[in-house]
């Protein structure tokens, strides 16, 4: 039943997309200033049916309708309600339907919110976006149909992978999708702009909001994923330079560069082709990332969805996208010349772009090189943290200096009167760094530079905020908050990296382990039956030997029944100044448990500063809205 409804809706949306493209092409030839009413109507139908289609699948999951293969494979009647819903996008087919939903929603919103812009430009955008929609709909229908039915209907489902049953992970995919798939709209707009010749400042204004929205969601999505890794994977870290994490960074670097250079295009009417390149590559990189993850070429935590036949389809689609984008781009490309004064804001924004492009290329090489090597020579290597840390971290130092100083320069040309201030703040930063160095411990030259640069950026931004409160000009506030938070983020990551404690040992019930600062007492163990898993809970008393304060930590080993899996839940005590982190895992055939104990300073502040970066983005969205 649901299967028929779902498939009919998909077919209906396909017909609507064809119709929209057809009428839009007809409308291009009319001299009328306004877009035909029919197109609005059809788009409204399209968005309604798409959302209905998604709800149909959600209903299938809520009711545990195992006549759908997708529900049978990814759900279970005993699963909590929340995870039944989250299960809808916790698998390849369902997430593809979500992908189509976001394409359609962005298409519709772009159509209705941009009525002040050129008609041709809007129609072309609509056409390109609908081509994308069709591409993904056919993929969905022919290869990855979430509405495929199964007969005889199974009585019980196979269940959702337990490590995915986590609140952070339930919202991680939708956030990332809004971020990544949202890029599609300015991919289409960039193509439309090249063809219709609607360029420059006006083009920048038409896509500005969409770039910001997708930037905010991408950033938030990446942070939530990282929070999940910290709490769920039990490895005690939050970023592993895992190939899939890296794949999510690629479009992020491109979009961050785009967000900045778009300001130059809007204010100075320069860098148009560069902005177009960034618009096109952001979405191309998103699809590339999806391809790498979904095809199974990359192996990692995310391989829930690997299947080569999907890979071939996405690859075909990707190739079409890249080649049409390149062909149109080179056909329309004209040489642009502009001379920027060295002491102008545009120069600094351009500098930001160089950094972003450098980071992007570094990560791209880190992803592609092992794949190329494997495919061509059958040699397996993995490019991991050492490579990225060595190449990327040193460059974060100058980046942070520029992030502080850059926005202070005016457009076109400005007099530099802030030399004294900069010097003073650098001095301040060095002193604070030396204090940390002196009181808490020694670290390398590079770490010193990182701390100095981060503190400099923080101090500078704080002064800026003070200034804003004096003259009540709020326009700069979102930018300052994002930059300040980036400084804080790097600072706290640095502290966390330098001053983390880690102990790894085996204990059995009743035993006590003493480290330098803590006494860890494994008091007892209990077993708890839950709805869909059984938990072995260890009870540990941690005594801080300095102040004799005791607290209890209860790490768990969970045995899920459907599908049968073991997961290790870390016990984490979060405090303002540090996190205590304890995981336990069973050592087979013995009474001993392997215990990993970590003390990680300022963990919570890493999350807070990362979230504040996004907050800056959201503030910018609302502020600009109020101004309009």
């Amino acid at each position: 039943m649901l299967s028929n409804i779902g498939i009919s809706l998909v077919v209906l949306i396909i017909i609507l997309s064809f119709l929209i493209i057809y009428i839009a092409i007809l409308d291009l030839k009319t001299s009328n200033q306004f877009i035909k009413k029919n197109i609005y109507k059809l788009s409204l139908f399209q968005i309604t049916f798409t959302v209905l289609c998604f709800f149909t699948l959600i209903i299938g999951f809520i009711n545990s309708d195992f006549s759908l293969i997708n529900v049978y494979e990814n759900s279970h009647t005993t699963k909590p309600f929340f995870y039944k819903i989250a299960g809808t996008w916790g698998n390849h087919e369902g997430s593809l339907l979500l992908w189509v939903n976001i394409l359609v929603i962005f298409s519709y919103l772009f159509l209705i919110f941009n009525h002040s812009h050129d008609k041709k430009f809007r129609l072309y955008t609509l056409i390109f976006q609908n081509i994308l929609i069709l591409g993904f709909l056919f993929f969905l229908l022919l290869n990855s149909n979430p509405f495929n039915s199964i007969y005889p209907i199974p009585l019980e489902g196979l269940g959702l992978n337990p490590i995915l049953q986590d609140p952070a992970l339930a919202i991680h995919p939708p956030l990332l999708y809004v971020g990544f798939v949202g890029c599609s709209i300015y991919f289409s707009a960039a193509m439309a702009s090249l063809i219709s010749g609607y360029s420059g400042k006006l083009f920048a204004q038409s896509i500005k909001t969409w770039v910001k929205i997708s930037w905010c969601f991408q950033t938030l999505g990446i942070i939530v994923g990282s929070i999940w890794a910290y709490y769920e994977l039990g490895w005690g870290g939050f970023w592993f330079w895992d190939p899939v994490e890296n794949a999510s960074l690629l479009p992020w670097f491109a979009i961050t560069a785009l967000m900045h250079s778009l300001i130059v295009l809007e204010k100075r009417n320069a860098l148009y082709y560069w902005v177009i390149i960034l618009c096109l590559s952001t979405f191309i990189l998103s699809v590339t990332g999806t391809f790498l993850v979904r095809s199974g070429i990359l192996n990692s935590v995310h391989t829930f969805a690997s299947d080569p036949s999907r890979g071939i389809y996405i690859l075909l689609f990707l190739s079409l996208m890249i080649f049409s984008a390149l062909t149109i781009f080179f056909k329309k490309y004209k040489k642009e010349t502009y001379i920027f004064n060295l002491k102008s804001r545009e120069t600094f924004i351009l500098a930001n772009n160089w950094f972003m492009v450098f980071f992007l290329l570094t990560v791209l090489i880190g992803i592609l090189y092992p794949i190329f090597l494997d495919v061509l020579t059958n040699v397996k290597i993995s490019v991991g943290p050492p490579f990225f840390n060595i190449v990327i971290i040193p460059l974060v130092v100058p980046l942070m200096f520029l992030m502080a100083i850059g926005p202070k320069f005016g457009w076109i040309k400005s007099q530099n009167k802030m030399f004294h201030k900069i010097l003073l703040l650098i001095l301040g930063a060095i002193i604070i760094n030396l204090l940390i160095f002196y009181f808490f411990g020694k670290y390398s030259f590079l770490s010193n530079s990182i701390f100095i640069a981060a503190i400099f950026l923080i101090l500078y931004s704080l002064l800026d905020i003070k200034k804003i409160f004096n003259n009540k000009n709020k326009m700069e506030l979102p930018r300052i908050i994002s930059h300040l938070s980036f400084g804080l983020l790097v600072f706290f990551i640095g502290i966390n990296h330098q001053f983390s404690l880690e102990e790894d040992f085996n204990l059995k019930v009743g035993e006590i382990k003493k480290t330098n600062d803590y006494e860890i007492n494994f008091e007892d163990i209990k077993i708890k039956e839950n709805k869909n898993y059984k938990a072995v809970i260890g009870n540990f008393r941690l005594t801080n030997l300095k102040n004799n304060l005791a607290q209890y930590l209860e790490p768990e080993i969970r045995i899920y029944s459907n599908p049968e899996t073991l997961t290790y839940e870390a016990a984490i005590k979060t405090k303002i100044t540090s996190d205590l982190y304890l995981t336990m895992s069973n050592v087979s055939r013995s009474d001993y448990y392997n215990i990993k104990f970590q003390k990680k300073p300022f963990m919570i502040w890493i999350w807070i500063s990362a979230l504040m970066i996004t907050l800056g983005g959201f503030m910018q969205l609302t502020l600009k809205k109020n101004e309009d």
Partner: protein
Amino acid sequence: MKINILKIIIFSFVIFSLSVFWLGLKIDNNYDTKSLIGSKISNFQLTEINNNNQHISNEYLKKNKYTLINFFASWCAPCRAEHRYLLSLSSKNKKIKIIGINFKDKKINANNFLKELGNPYDFVGQDTDGKISISFGIYGIPESILVNNELTVIKKIIGPIDQTQFDDVLKIIQ
């Protein structure tokens, strides 16, 4: 002119990457060391698990017509499953010697493991940090390599030995 060169470079890079991706889809992604079959064993030296002064090297393999090198550990559950095949192989046949390499394990645990299940090995070598096993091309245990007296790898068994694998080994050494 300049733009043309750039165009060519970009297009070739894109075509190259996409074709590599395409090839990548076709190859089996599971790491496979089957290619080692037919190759020669490189030089090695093993130390006896309970006696640090007792060593064996390539020379040991040359003395026997066939040697099965088995990688095991006390913490490895599938190793228990395959153990009975190793035992019956060692008791049935005088033509084959079995070397056990104890992978990333504790001495006490390994000895208990052999005491409990029986010891099929003619020699048990220690490999506490796993480096020797890696030089044999092992990436997970249990794994076993069948070698002849010319030090050539004849068969590789990835995962626990089962009835079919066991019969195969018997057929080869007959």
